């Protein structure tokens, strides 16, 4: 595990999110795959596990909440980070109940999400 690159899946239906986030995280040494539809992302997580999943909540088709629920059921040790433009206490609470690692309200800074991801990575490495 030590030498393996940490893998991250990003799901957000607004392309700008992946477009900005993917190169920024790759530059920091992560292996990143980005999706703008939950169907495609879902298909991908059925194929393989990611160490970290970054997902929006509100999207067309499969809802982000459903998506992260499935991810957590399938891979309990994948850390999920929720990013959303509609941050309410209720959604935050529900996310945490599902075992979400952290919750970020959009817009956020590149540095902020990098910090959260680094924390999640530390947790993963610490448990393995």
């Amino acid at each position, binding site marked *: 595990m030590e030498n393996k690159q940490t893998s991250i899946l990003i799901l957000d239906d607004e392309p*700008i999110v992946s477009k900005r*986030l993917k190169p920024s995280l790759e530059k920091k040494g992560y292996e990143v795959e980005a999706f703008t539809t939950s169907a495609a992302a879902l298909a991908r997580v059925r194929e393989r596990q990611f160490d970290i999943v970054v997902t929006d909540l509100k999207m067309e088709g499969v809802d982000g909440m459903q998506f992260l629920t499935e991810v957590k059921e399938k891979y309990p040790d994948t850390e999920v980070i929720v990013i959303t433009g509609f941050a309410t206490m209720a959604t935050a609470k529900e996310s945490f109940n599902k075992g979400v690692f952290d919750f970020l309200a*959009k817009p956020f800074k590149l540095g902020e999400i990098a910090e959260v991801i680094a924390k999640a990575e530390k947790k993963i490495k610490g448990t393995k």
Partner: protein
Amino acid sequence: MQSFLQQIRGIFNRKKKETVPFKILFAEFKKSLELNNQVLDIIADANDKLSGDYIFDEQYIQSTCMELTDLIRQLIVTINHLTEQKYSELYTSFHLIEEEIESLLQGQMLNQVKDLILPYASVTRDLTDSVGGKNAHIAEIGTLTDLRIPEGFAITTAAFLFFLQENELYDWIFTIRKQWRQKVIPVEEASQKIQRAILDATVPPQLEEVILDAAAQISKGYRDIVPCFAVRSSALGEDEISSFAGQYLSCLNIPVKEIPQAYKEVVASLFSPEAMEYRLQMDFRPHEIMMAVACQLMVPAKASGVMYTYDPVRPEMETMIINSAWGLGEPIVAGEVPTDAFVLDRQPPNDVREMQIVRKDQSMVLRGCGGIGIDGVEEEQRTESSLTKRQLQELARIGVRLERYFKRPQDIEFAVDQQERVIVLQSRQLRLQHERAPRACDLTGLGDKYSIIFRGRGIAAMEGIATGEAWVMREGGDLKDFPMGGILVARHATPQLARVINRATGFITDVGSTTGHLATVAREFRVPALFNTENGTELIRHGQEITLDTECLTVYEGIVQELQYYSIQEEPIEEMYEYRLLRRVLKKIEPLNLTDPEADNFTPRGCRTYHDLTRFVHEKAVETIIDLNFYHAHNRDTQAGRLVWDYPLDLILIDVGGGIEGEHEKGIRPEQITSVPMRALLRGMSYPGMWDMSPAGVDFSSFMSSLTRTTSVRSTSPEDVGRNLAVVSAEYTNINFRLGYHFTVIDAYVSDNILDNHIYFRFSGGVTETTRRARRTRLLGRILSHYDFLCEMHGDIVVARLKRTDRERMLQRLFLLGLLVGFTRQLDVKMVSEEMITTFFNEIKTIMEKENGK
């Protein structure tokens, strides 16, 4: 806040009048202030999002606009409540702006100008939708760099629509286009029909007149020759998609009179079969099919050519490529003639690495009476290099310059005129071969390869990567000496540094705010900026080469090639739709046009942005409160009077209960004021020497009179007086000062109950930013924080809050605010150097210690 407002309200319940009770007016007034502050804070935050440091989506832009629209609506409702609907016209301006923002959000292309033509001097990047990319690019180069471009003007997309509509062609063209799309007719037939109709149409006289006028205006400067023009396409989307290049027509050496005819030909080329097919592939929507046209003074070129600032196939070679030949550039661009080829080092002194001089028998030249021809080249010139060594060097500098400015490798067309000067004709992004692009994942572990000066320090005011020579600004250092392409390293992010924006490739400061003026300018010019590094000026050596990566908050020693390549490949954020959208909507929100309350445009109809509306409402709210309670004395439940004291501060006091004692027909003397917070403030404001603390030779009385009006009550009408207002009660004070262009708001409640006590202080500067203002902001921040205030700074707005502090300390702090109010108005004049911050800070501290024994 709520509880004590209620207390104030309680005071008024004793009297009932048919006029609106003051408590209601005052509640509305305070509401307008609160809304005003919210609006300005949201605007400052939205601008911050342009730094590239944030990830935001369309949703954010939508909700921010919605929120602002809602607040502005409330503001207008509020001011109309206050004034019995006196400013209902504000709704008209508001709806106009709201609609414009709405249509931007819905992705509609805005014809931002109604002008049919625009001289290059007035064309900016924001007008790309009106003038097309080619015009916008070249005009921007001319305005914002010192490079030479041909004189010229743009015939706008508004003119295009006007031309087609006057000839009843617009809808017709799209009917024909539809027939083609539905495969009723082939593309050739559709194209031919449309092109013929355009060529047969008449340029409306109104359009013809402005075109001929603009051309004549430029021609005036040339007495010896009859100037002719190049009439070129500048279609929407033409510049962004490079394979579009060459699809449309350029007409060369056109005499002024023939420009309208050439205009029609260029417009017709928008509907060539190739262009129509191409747009179909690119999924252009009908409203995106528009042709603006460039009219540029013809350069009688001795030689012409094309420069690539990188070798597109082998960018790692670090070379620039130049091809040139004698005469006009058209056959060179079209690849029709043999050209001299030069390969130059990208790094100064830009040595020529390779040079291939070919035999050039013919060249394209201008004919005297208009038109062009092919001539034989003079025998001795045929084998001579078409560019001199000096010109090659100049081209290299121009290339680096444009590349740094546009942040991408450039493909530049140029001409050398008869005086041997290099003139830039066009510059657009050069696409490098993709498989050569370094990938982001190759960039890990740079820290092992390069030595890091610091990492993880500061905040990015503008995202990006910069490489260059560090120029560390010392006290007394002269920005004149700042080198081209340098990275400016300074203690503070002062607006004054913006002077070098055209020369700098990066900014690094020890201290600075991402919402300040320099940050805004850095974003406008896309210069990477890292602020708040704490001690960057100590860690970075003057003159050393460095690489700045703001995303990783890292500065490397030397030039990190990997990052340099990466940065030129990366899609710059301004090429993202959301970024452009935010920028566009902010143009309808942020600029302040109403700067002077005495000016003619300071009217509801003069409001063109949300900021204007906010500013107008604030001014009128203060004015109304003074007017109703002092001049017209509608409200019997208040007492009002003008402060009479030794300092010429024109202040109207409105007492809502127990704030003033005794008779006040002839004005209120300071000793009559019983309002506890107001007394403390006035004691500070009138502290000996505060009005004139430094020996700077400012004429005190004229200085003060520029800030406040000193006319007497009786000789003046309410409209003529400064808007300084204090609403007071025994334990409460709310102050609104407008001093020159500065606004100060103080809201304070002081009682024996610690839990109820609060002070709110808000200070905002005017429109024009100066270094001294920035210093003033920092001085205020330093002093206020020192005395326990919680401070926030947005640009040059300072907001300070203090709560739950005992009575004695609250009064000391109010005394301090009084000192600052008396004193800060002078600071614009006196903050002549950075040291003044410490000097003034110490002086204030001394006074505080002396007065308060601590």
